[in-house]
């Protein structure tokens, strides 16, 4: 009787264990794309890179990165205004840019991307640009007085940004492109249309400057750029490659900082 019970248990177990299921591997790609359209930029920059095996040591050095640039792709951007061919090496040795001058990026418009690589890989992407954005604060030419942080020998000013528009945006990027003097620079993400940011400057760098003029750009960003850059999604607005095809619509303002 004991053994009959054990056999019964094993029979039930066998039925269930036969249903073992393992998840499928995600599709892998050989290329990555960084392409974020911007209405404020003179040239649109499309970056196409090969992926690197994990076993390869990598670095952020420009010359190192250049090794991974795909230089022989056929790239085309399709906007409501027409089709625009992109070519490698026009403005930079890392990127592709448009070959004709008529390309303009408009708010609330759909743009498509098509890339054909020599090995037959076809990469496509779609983005919808956010609505027009306008900086309300700070106003053009507004002057900010720099305060001194004694402990760290830094100068800083707290700047309140206030924006209008940007419909369909998933967030905003504030860019103060003055890296030589700004400790804080680059692209800073803010979620809301009103934000207070502290701009800091190394006192050593601006010791001979009484009034510092800075052009600050603020962009409304689309869902693709947000998902890739902020949320960390590997593929956003793009197929058959990692990276992002996104867009941002911006406004700029010039402000002054005085001691």
């Amino acid at each position: 009787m004991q053994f009959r019970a054990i056999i019964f248990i094993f029979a039930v177990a066998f039925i269930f264990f036969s249903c073992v299921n393992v998840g499928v591997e995600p599709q892998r790609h050989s290329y990555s794309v960084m392409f974020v359209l911007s209405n404020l930029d003179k040239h649109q920059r499309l970056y196409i890179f090969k992926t690197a095996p994990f076993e390869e040591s990598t670095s952020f050095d420009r010359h190192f990165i250049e090794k991974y640039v795909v230089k022989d792709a056929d790239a085309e951007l399709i906007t409501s205004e027409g089709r625009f061919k992109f070519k490698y090496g026009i403005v930079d040795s890392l990127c592709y840019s448009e070959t004709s001058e008529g390309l303009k990026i408009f708010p609330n418009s759909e743009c498509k991307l098509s890339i054909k690589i020599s090995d037959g890989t076809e990469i496509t992407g779609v983005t919808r640009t956010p609505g027009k954005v306008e900086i309300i604060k700070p106003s053009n030419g507004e002057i900010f007085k720099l305060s001194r942080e004694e402990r760290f020998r830094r100068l800083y000013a707290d700047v309140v940004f206030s924006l209008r528009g940007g419909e369909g945006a998933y967030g905003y990027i504030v860019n103060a492109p003055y890296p030589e003097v700004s400790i804080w620079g680059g692209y800073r993400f803010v979620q809301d249309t009103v934000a207070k940011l502290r701009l800091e400057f190394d006192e050593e760098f601006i010791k001979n400057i009484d009034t510092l003029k800075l052009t600050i750009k603020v962009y409304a960003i689309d869902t693709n750029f947000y998902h890739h850059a902020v949320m960390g999604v590997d593929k956003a607005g793009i197929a058959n490659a990692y990276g992002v095809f996104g867009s941002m619509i911006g406004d700029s303002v010039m402000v002054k900082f005085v001691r």
Partner: protein
Amino acid sequence: MIKLILLLIILCSNLAISQRFTLKGTVVDKSTKLPIENVNIEVVNIGKGTISDRDGYFELKLPFGEHKIKFTHLNYNPHEETIHRDTAGAVILKIELEPRYIEFKPVEVQSKMKKVEYENFSKFEINYDFIKASPTIVEEDILRTVAMLPGVVTLNDFTTQIYVWGSNFDQTGVFLDGMPIYNPYHFGGIFSMFNQYIIGSATLYPGGQPVVYDDYSSGILDIESKTPGYETYDLKTEISMANLKLYTEVNLSKAGKLAIGMRRIYLDLILRLLSDEFKRSPYYFYDIFARYSLLSSGKDMFSLTGFVSKDVFDYFGVNWDPAEILFSKMPAWGNAGLSLRWMHILKDENFFELRSYVSNSFFKTKAELIDLGWKFLDVNNDLIDWGINGFVQLSPFENLKLKVGGSFKNVDFNYFWKSDGIDLWDILTAEITVEERVDARSEEVFFDNAPNPFDFKRRISKTSLYFDGFLKLKKFQINTGVKLIHSSSNNQIKLSTNLNLTYNLSPKVDVSLIYGRYYQYIQMIKDKVSATLTAPFSVFLPLETPIRANHFVVKTGVKDIFGRDKLDVSFYLKTFDGIKSSVDDMRLYTYSSGISYGLNLYFNQEFKWFNWYVSYSFGRAFKEVDDYWYPANYDQRHSVKIFVNVRLTRKWDLSLFWVYGSGLPYTPIYAKYLGYGYGLNTSQVYPFTWNLISGGRNSRYLPDYHRLDVKFEGNYVWGRFQFKPFVQIFNVYNNVRVFRYEFLSYSSAPSKSPGSFIIPSIGVEINLNL
């Protein structure tokens, strides 16, 4: 003259020796005839005494003459003997003591009720002897003992965090005297917060638990503290290589008894003595436990349990110059709780019980620092759970028991943290992690992708009515339970159910079919970050939609196949819906499903000098996110566990534990690509970042591992002292268990993190009868 004096001395001493005789014998239980350990044997007329050893044996040297010997033990009626002897030699006594349980009848009734009612549930009873015999790291620990049971998984060999029968750790509830304990750990999980001396009994329900335990969707570890009055020593203490433990009981009145247990790590004190570097204690923990029991008129028993367990880590003092610290409050985390219980005997085994509790889990710290910039950290996490539960148990017939009750539970979640420049991850893993830390974002310390700053306040309450019935027919036993639950989190009523059908195929074989449905309203959300060595503090969050679990368990028990043995074969299938999970690499959440199934074989034999068990477990555990099914972090496919406890000599025991387990899953990284990156602390977007390309989530498995642990334990009686020295070696042959592969974007090979190494330890338990 000198020779004459020497001669006199020798003669006198010989005379003195010859005027003594030996009194020896054994003390046994009158009803069971089993030896009784720790009987206090006092020679009343000369004030001398000893205690019996584990064989009930005692021995005393007494002068010639008449002596009145008194035998006392808390669980037995006192006994007196008068002996007279004027010649050398030995007097041999065999004393039988009569048990006295009358004054603890409520406890007896309650334990009896539990045993009958939930007898055929799938469960493991963990008693003090098993905990004591388990070879572990540094000292005994109930959670480590639980990890030795079939189907229980740990993510590495250091942690005491348990994953029971295909479920995450937060799906198994840990209770102490009815209080839910949310983070029952010290030292990041290397020790549990339970001093083993306070433990009276513990039961692990790994699946298909009784419906009264509906708060957790997978299993229950129900720990009841020791009822004061059963302890046979006035003072118990243990000195291990890290901690000092104490336990004592005090009679506050004729019917009221107080038990106190304390533990503190003392390594920090030694470090302070050894090095100036550690003048400020880098880390310490302690726990204090007290239980007061009052018996009133033989029909009412009240008990009040309170505890505090706390870890304190002076992270700022260790890592920063005092001149750089503007303000700091050392990171401290732990638990505190209070439980009140009233049992009233109505008649025979009919009684009612009322229990209320409050349980708090906390993590707090605050600091402002100057370190090449201004840094600050403010963490104030509090979870306060309180509730009341009452039921009446009636037994109208001998084979029928009915339990009707209701409960109310309220949980307040108060979480706040804000950090800039101070990495919470560093704080919680500093000085503990062996290998280079995984490049995790600080906010993931508490749960996946939590924002910074985080300010979360929420309250949920739950009201339940339940019924539990037990009916025993000739060969059938039926246990059914239903529980109606109303939760404020979604204002809905849910029905938890449980059905257990047991059929006795023969006197030696029974088969049980168990079904249970449970709802879990509180969950820890953390399944994305790589496994860590330690688990210091987890943030539990309320769920708007509860996790719904279905359990199916088929269990067969076969007794006496070879004699004095038992074979348990259990098959389980658990399904889960509504598990809140983070989406891979995204700061988003989704509700996902889970399924786990497995088979456990457990065979044990018990003899007087030898007991052992062997178990084999097969298990699979999967989770699903967006229709993608992947193995859960705790998906251990095979494990074999063997435990042997043998009495080597009259004074020494040997315990061995060997485990083989298949490796746990990990997510492989195949390649890297250039894209954008994001700094959570700085909110900056960085172009040209090398991002990692993952393979399937948890689609590869770490290497299998095996380990042998050994423990020797002695037992010596010296006067009124009992010494129990122990020597144990954890991972005897130093077989490294890899518990994690770390992939960093700048490196070209994953590093392997060792999850175990050889750890020898010694200690001694000293018991004293005053």
